[in-house]
C-alpha cells in the first residue's frame, strides 16, 4: 500500500498538519484509494510545513507546503505516484537543504514514526545500548569521553568527564536527570528529539544509567511542551513493555527506570541546581556550587544532569564508536551541532552540521536571508543570555572557542535573526526585563540589578543624563557579570553589552563613541 507521510511535530501542527492529514484521508476514501497514512516527525524544513511525502520505488517524494485546499488537486495530479504538480519538490533526500547536512543525532528525525518501536529498531535503534551492555561502566564512559562530546545545553562541559565524576562517586542510589527545560528563545532541537525521535533519548539515558550505575532517570520537561509530554509518556510505556526499561534491561540484570516530570514555567529551572530543587518539590532557588550535582545532586545523591541533545547523541557514539563522532568538527568542538534557525529568517528550521560552518552560511545558504527581505542587521546566538552579533561578525565559524574569542556564546545552537527594523536599545532593555521576571531572587546583582537595568535603559532612551547613564549601564553590567551566582544574572550583560558595543547608534551614541 502507498505510504503518505504527514508530520506530527508541533511546528507542523501549528501550521495545520492535522487538517492536511484529515483532508488526505477523506480524499483517498472519496476516491476509493487505499493509502497508509504515517504521522512521521518533521524533516526540519519548517518553512515548508505541512511537508507531505509519498513513498515511491525511487524513494520518498516531497510535496510542500500542503494545505487542505491543495489536496484534491494533488490527487488529480496523481501525487501518489509522484505526479507533476507545482508543490512537487522531488526526492526528499535530494533536497539541497538536507543533503548539505550531517545528521548524526537527528539521523532518524523526520524519517520514522516517532512512537513506533519497530520503526526505531529498523533504523539502527538500540544498537548503542546493546554494545554498552557488553562493556564495563568505565569503558562506556571512556567512549563518551573519547568522542569529544561536550554538553549541548550551552556550557559545553565534556560529557564523559562529567559521567566519570558520577561513576567515581560513592552512593547506593544515583540518578540520571535529563534537562528538557529548553527555555532559550530560538531553540527547539530538544523539542524535536522528544517529539520526533523520543526513543533515542530514552536509549541515551539508559546507557548513561548503565554506565554510572544509576537506576532511576527523570526527564524534567518544560510545561510549554504538551505534545512532547504525550509522546514521551507513550514511548516510555512501550519501552517498559518491550523490556528496554525496568528492573532487567534487555535481560542484563541491570535496572533502569524512567519518568517524566513536568516543570512549571520558570526559566531559571533550566539551571541544573535550580532544576534539582524543583524536582525535589521545592522552589527553584539556585544552589551554591560546589558541591557539583555529579557528587551531590538529586536528593543529595550523585547525579548526571545532561541536556536532551547530549543524551540523544550518546546512542550513535556507542553504536558507531568514539572516533566516528570525533572525526566531525573543528578544534576542541568535536562532532555535530543541531543548529536552529529562527526569528526573521526566510527558511527557518533545523540544520545539523559539523562544527566549523560560518554564521553567514547558516543565515544565507540555509536560511535564505530574512523573511521580510530586508537586510539582516543583528543576530542573537545562544538564547536570551547570548550576545547580539553584527554583520561584521557573520564569518565567525560555529565553534565554542571561536565564539568565546569574540565575547559571544554558541550555547544551545539557537540563531535568531533580526532585520534592520530592530531597535537594539529596546532589545537590551528586554534582556533586563526578562532577567527581572525570571530571577530566582537568591543574589542581589541579579535580583536588583535587572530591575535597575530596565530603569537605566529607560533613562538612556529618553536622553536623561545620557553620558552618565551609559556609564551606569556599563558598571551595572560589570557588577552582574562578576557578582551573580548563576548565569542568568551573570550572562544578561552579554546581550546588553554586545548591543551597546556593536549598535551604539541605537543608544544615542555617535559612531566615535561606540567602540568601547
Amino acid at each position: 500500500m502507498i505510504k503518505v507521510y504527514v508530520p506530527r511535530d508541533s511546528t507542523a501542527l501549528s501550521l495545520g498538519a492535522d487538517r492536511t492529514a484529515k483532508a488526505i484521508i477523506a480524499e483517498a476514501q472519496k476516491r476509493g484509494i487505499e493509502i497508509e497514512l504515517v504521522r512521521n516527525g518533521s524533516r526540519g524544513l519548517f518553512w515548508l510545513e505541512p511537508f507531505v511525502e509519498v513513498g515511491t520505488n525511487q524513494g520518498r517524494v516531497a510535496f510542500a507546503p500542503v494545505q487542505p485546499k491543495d489536496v484534491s488537486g494533488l490527487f488529480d495530479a496523481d501525487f501518489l505516484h509522484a505526479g507533476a504538480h507545482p508543490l512537487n519538490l522531488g526526492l526528499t533526500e535530494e533536497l539541497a537543504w538536507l543533503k548539505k547536512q550531517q545528521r548524526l543525532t537527528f539521523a532518524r528525525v523526520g524519517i520514522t514514526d516517532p512512537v513506533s518501536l519497530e520503526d526505531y529498531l529498523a533504523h539502527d535503534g538500540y544498537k548503542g545500548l546493546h554494545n554498552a551492555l557488553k562493556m564495563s561502566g568505565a569503558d562506556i564512559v571512556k567512549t563518551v569521553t573519547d568522542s569529544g562530546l561536550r554538553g549541548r545545553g550551552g556550557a559545553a562541559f565534556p560529557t564523559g568527564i562529567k559521567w566519570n565524576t558520577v561513576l567515581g562517586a560513592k552512593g547506593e542510589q544515583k540518578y540520571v536527570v535529563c534537562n528538557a527545560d529548553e527555555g532559550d528563545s530560538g531553540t527547539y532541537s530538544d523539542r524535536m528529539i522528544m517529539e520526533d525521535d523520543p526513543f533515542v533519548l530514552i536509549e541515551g539515558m539508559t546507557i548513561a544509567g548503565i554506565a554510572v550505575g544509576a537506576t532511576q532517570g527523570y526527564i524534567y520537561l518544560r510545561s510549554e511542551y504538551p505534545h512532547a509530554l504525550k509522546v514521551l509518556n507513550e514511548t516510555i510505556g512501550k519501552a517498559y513493555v518491550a523490556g528496554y526499561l525496568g528492573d532487567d534491561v534487555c535481560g542484563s540484570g541491570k535496572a533502569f527506570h524512567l519518568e517524566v516530570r513536568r516543570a512549571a514555567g520558570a526559566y531559571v529551572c533550566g539551571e541544573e541546581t535550580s532544576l534539582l530543587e524543583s524536582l525535589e518539590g521545592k522552589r527553584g532557588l539556585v544552589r551554591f556550587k560546589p558541591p557539583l550535582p555529579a557528587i551531590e545532586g538529586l536528593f543529595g545523591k550523585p547525579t548526571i544532569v545532561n541536556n536532551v541533545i547530549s543524551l540523544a547523541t550518546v546512542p550513535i557514539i556507542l553504536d558507531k564508536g568514539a572516533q566516528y563522532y570525533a572525526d566531525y568538527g573543528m578544534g576542541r568542538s568535536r562532532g555535530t551541532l543541531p543548529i536552529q534557525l529562527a526569528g526573521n529568517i526566510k527558511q527557518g528550521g533545523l540544520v545539523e552540521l559539523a562544527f566549523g560552518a560560518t554564521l553567514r552560511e547558516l543565515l544565507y545558504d540555509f536560511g535564505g536571508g530574512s523573511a521580510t527581505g530586508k537586510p539582516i542587521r543583528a543576530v542573537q546566538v545562544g538564547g536570551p543570555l547570548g550576545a547580539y552579533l553584527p554583520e561584521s561578525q557573520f564569518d565567525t565559524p560555529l565553534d565554542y572557542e571561536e565564539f568565546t574569542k569574540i565575547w559571544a556564546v554558541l550555547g544551545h545552537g539557537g540563531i535568531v535573526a533580526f532585520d534592520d527594523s530592530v531597535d537594539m536599545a529596546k532589545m537590551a532593555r528586554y534582556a533586563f526585563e526578562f532577567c527581572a521576571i525570571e530571577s530566582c531572587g537568591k543574589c542581589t546583582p541579579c535580583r536588583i540589578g535587572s530591575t535597575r537595568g530596565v530603569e537605566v535603559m529607560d533613562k538612556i532612551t529618553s536622553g536623561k543624563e545620557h553620558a552618565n547613564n551609559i556609564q551606569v549601564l556599563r558598571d551595572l553590567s560589570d557588577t552582574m557579570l562578576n557578582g551573580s551566582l548563576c548565569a542568568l544574572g551573570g550572562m544578561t550583560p552579554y546581550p546588553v553589552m554586545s548591543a551597546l558595543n556593536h549598535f551604539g547608534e541605537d543608544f544615542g551614541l555617535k559612531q566615535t563613541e561606540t567602540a568601547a
Partner: protein
Amino acid sequence: MVTTLTAVDLEKIQAHITAHKDVPGALLPLLHAIQDDIGYIPEEAYPLMAKGLALSVAEVHGVVTFYHHFRTHPAGKHVLQVCRAESCQAMGSEKLEAHIKSILGIDFHQTTADGAITLEPVYCLGNCACSPAVLIDEELYGRVDSQKIDEIIQEARSSS
C-alpha cells in the same frame, strides 16, 4: 480570600494527595494533578497538601507562588498564551500582543468579562522557526498575524 470550593473539588484534591504522598519530590506533580483536574490551586487546599506531604503551609505557598504556571484562582474557559520572546519579537509579536489586548479588552494575567479567555505571556513555545507563536489551551499556532488570531479567538469563543 475565600473561594467557594465544592465538596466534590475537595474530594478530588484529597484523592490526588493520597495518590501522590509516597512519590519522591511529590509537590510539583501533585500541584499539576490538581490544576489539570480543577483548573487552579485553591488556597484552602494548602493545609491539606501540607499535612499530606509533611510540609509546612508556608512551604506549599512558597512553591505555588514561585512558578508562573500555577494559578490560585480559576482561569477563563480557554487560556491563550502569547509568546513575547526574542524570536517572536523579530517577527512582530509586539504588534500582535497589542492587537490581542485591544480586541479582548484585557491585559496579561486577566480574563475577559464573559469568562471565555485568560491571557498570559509566555517566553518561547519552541515554535521559533515560525514566529510569532501562540498556544491556546494545548493547541499551538505559528506565523500568527492579526487575522489569524481573530479566527483563533472566535473559534475558541464559539466552542464553549
